[in-house]
């Protein structure tokens, strides 16, 4: 039986990376006071645009950039509708998911069955030679490192930088931020674009590394998990990381258990990542409930009065 930590950890890090990237993007969007329920749509759009770019150029790096661009382009639609035309964020986000699923299926018709260029692993010199720890943590592809770096970067940005402070202020009380002269709509648009790019990266990671090929609807609800993680992590980057790895870990574990033929109904195993993640995060968020949601989350903002 092949269930040991040394095998499990690298797998779970890779399995968690898509929802971690998408969740991190959505965290920043929600911190700015915008609720974008279109994560799933942006992810799948990123998955196909990234796949197309990688296949066309033969470069996985350009593929990831293409994925980010695709996700951001879809986010721009959301931003224009909700920030420019004041449409309802919940309805627009849901529509964005449906739109993204349809658009990606259309774009992907010619790409079914193709193989993308291989994304190379980048073992970190020295560290990856360490026994046990080396293969577990320091022998991954670029995006896994990037996602971890992004967690720390988002945390530091929100906590210590002035733009991060302004972003939090806009999300907390947009009327007050406006009264102080901050450009609420512009700041939110930038956050929305960042969220779209991150969701697109997450999607591209699925189609270029995890699977790796294009199939219709391949995100299979990962965007919704990312959304839920943001709430349960109480809008904090490190708990989000824990939540994403927990989900990824149990996904990998239950797959290995299924493969090993453990005597538990398969349905129960398939259910387990969702159940355990939600349970653990509910306990976590109950403990740290004081943080709470951004005060202006999901509320439309009119500058005029």
């Amino acid at each position, binding site marked *: 039986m092949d269930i040991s930590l040394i095998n499990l950890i690298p797998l779970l890090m890779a399995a968690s990376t898509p929802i971690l990237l998408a969740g991190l993007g959505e965290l920043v969007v929600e911190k700015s006071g915008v609720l974008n329920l279109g994560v799933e749509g942006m992810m799948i759009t990123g998955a196909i645009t990234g796949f197309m770019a990688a296949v066309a150029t033969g470069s996985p790096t350009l593929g990831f950039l293409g994925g980010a661009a695709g996700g951001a382009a879809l986010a721009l639609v959301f931003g224009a509708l909700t920030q420019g035309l004041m449409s309802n964020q919940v309805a627009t986000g849901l529509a964005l998911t449906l739109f993204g699923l349809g658009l990606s299926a259309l774009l992907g018709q010619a790409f079914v069955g193709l193989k993308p260029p291989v994304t190379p692993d980048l073992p970190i010199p020295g560290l990856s030679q360490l026994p046990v720890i080396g293969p577990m943590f320091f022998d991954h592809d670029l995006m896994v490192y990037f996602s971890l770096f992004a967690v720390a970067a988002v945390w530091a940005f929100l906590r210590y930088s002035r733009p991060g402070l302004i972003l939090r*202020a806009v999300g*907390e009380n947009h*009327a*007050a*931020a406006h*009264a102080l*002269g901050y450009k609420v709509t512009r700041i939110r648009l930038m956050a929305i674009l960042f969220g779209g790019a991150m969701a697109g990266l997450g999607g591209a990671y699925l189609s270029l590394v995890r699977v790796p090929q294009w199939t219709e609807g391949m995100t299979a609800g990962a965007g919704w998990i990312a959304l839920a993680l943001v709430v349960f992590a109480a809008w904090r980057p490190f708990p989000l990381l824990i939540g994403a790895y927990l989900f990824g870990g149990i996904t990998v574990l239950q797959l290995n258990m299924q493969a090993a033929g453990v005597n538990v109904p398969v349905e129960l195993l398939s259910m387990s990542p969702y159940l355990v993640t939600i349970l653990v995060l509910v306990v976590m968020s109950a403990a740290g409930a004081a*943080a709470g949601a951004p*005060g202006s989350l999901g509320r439309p903002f009119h500058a005029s009065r």
Partner: protein
Amino acid sequence: MTSTDDLLVIEGVTKAYPGVVANSDVSFRIRKGEVHALLGENGAGKSTLVKTIYGLVTPDAGTMVLDGLRYAPSEPSAARQAGVAMVFQHFSLFDALTVAENIALGMETPPKRRVLARQIREVSEAYGLPLSPHRRVGDLSAGERQRVEIVRCLLQDPRLLIMDEPTSVLTPQEVEILFRTLRQLSSEGTAILYISHKLDEIRAICDTATILRHGKVVGDCVPSQTSARDMAEMMVAAKLDTPVKHPGTPGAEVLSVDGLSLPAASQFGTALKEIGFSVAKGEILGIGGVAGNGQDELFAVLSGETRTAPDAVTFDGRPVGRLGPHERRAIGILSAPEERLGHAAAPDMSLTDNALMTAALRMKLAPGGWIDWAGVKGYAETVIKAFDVRTPGAHTAAGALSGGNLQKFVVGREVMQAPQLLIVNQPTWGVDAAAAAHIRKALIKLAEDGAAVIAISQDLDELMEISDRITAICDGRMVRPRPAQGLTMNDLGLMLGGRDPEEEAVA
């Protein structure tokens, strides 16, 4: 002609919105180091003018000159750079952020965190406004929150400080502290533009006053040499009759609350502790207190939104603690909550719809479950007429009315249903002098006609004006009610702090 004493000269400022001219040819000047009052009813154009000075609104015409230089801020940061700072009426603070973070957001180029924290301590102590930089703003009292705003302004060495209704949420003691700070600032040469409805305060602190009506300057005066009544009449251009209270003999006890304790509903709520009092027919009981000390919780218990043990609240000798608002209305207990939009009225629905919502039962507007729309409209129009609600008609959305007019409607809607007991929370909060007088008169009239009234208010002058007896609530406890006659402001201040003035006198 501009003298060197003038800090800000405003000439012919005009701003029109679709349908209304908010400011029309407004001209006045503020001298260096003076405290200048801006007076006017709700909707007279004060806030538009202030927003123009602070760069939030661009005027259609007119010029401003700040210290000899042309001044046309395109945005608040330009105003701040020019030395104009503003403390907002509804605090522009971020609850989830710390004091230091809030202050940094209001500065153009904030220093490093540690330096800023030290500056906050220094400035706040220099002006007698102690403040800890690392506390979360959401946990602060109203007075402390205002300090955050003031310190934020002071850190930028403003030449002109704009204060919009600064005292509406403060205790008398906190007002004293604020006034000391303002006098200190003014003696150091900072000019202050002070906006308030409270004419006594303006008389106490302001050097000059400019009065606005319907967007135009209609006069100026020296507040210390003008009576509050004269200023109020200039604001409304009409004779103002102050409600007069005729103390009568109270009738039989109608409502009593006994041993009421209630845990806080949320982290930010206040627990009620051992509250007991009673109200008699024909009596107005005033309940004072600084916001957040349990008024909202007590109101919810009295109106029936929060249910209690049956015996905790008795009405006409019968336990009503378990009855909801609807059942209480049926037996004559009516209430008008504080929050006009969203609690007392549904903002996007018409006045007719809003009239139906609380009056359906007592005015029989929905016989057999079918709405009698003609009757509802008639009732809404009766309220509009009787309470002089200025609106195009009963079909207007509640949210489109000015605060004062909507408040008249909300209170009127209950008063016209002839309650046995009316509970009002902050009956004239944010309402101009004329509308406030109207509402107070209606409450007094209601009591004279035999109803009992409980008025929860932060406005001590209002409590003194209308109440027969006054009590106060502090940290969820109520002090013993005392007859209003003979109470001094000092007594009231002690009561707001949860102390009994008589016991203090003995001690």
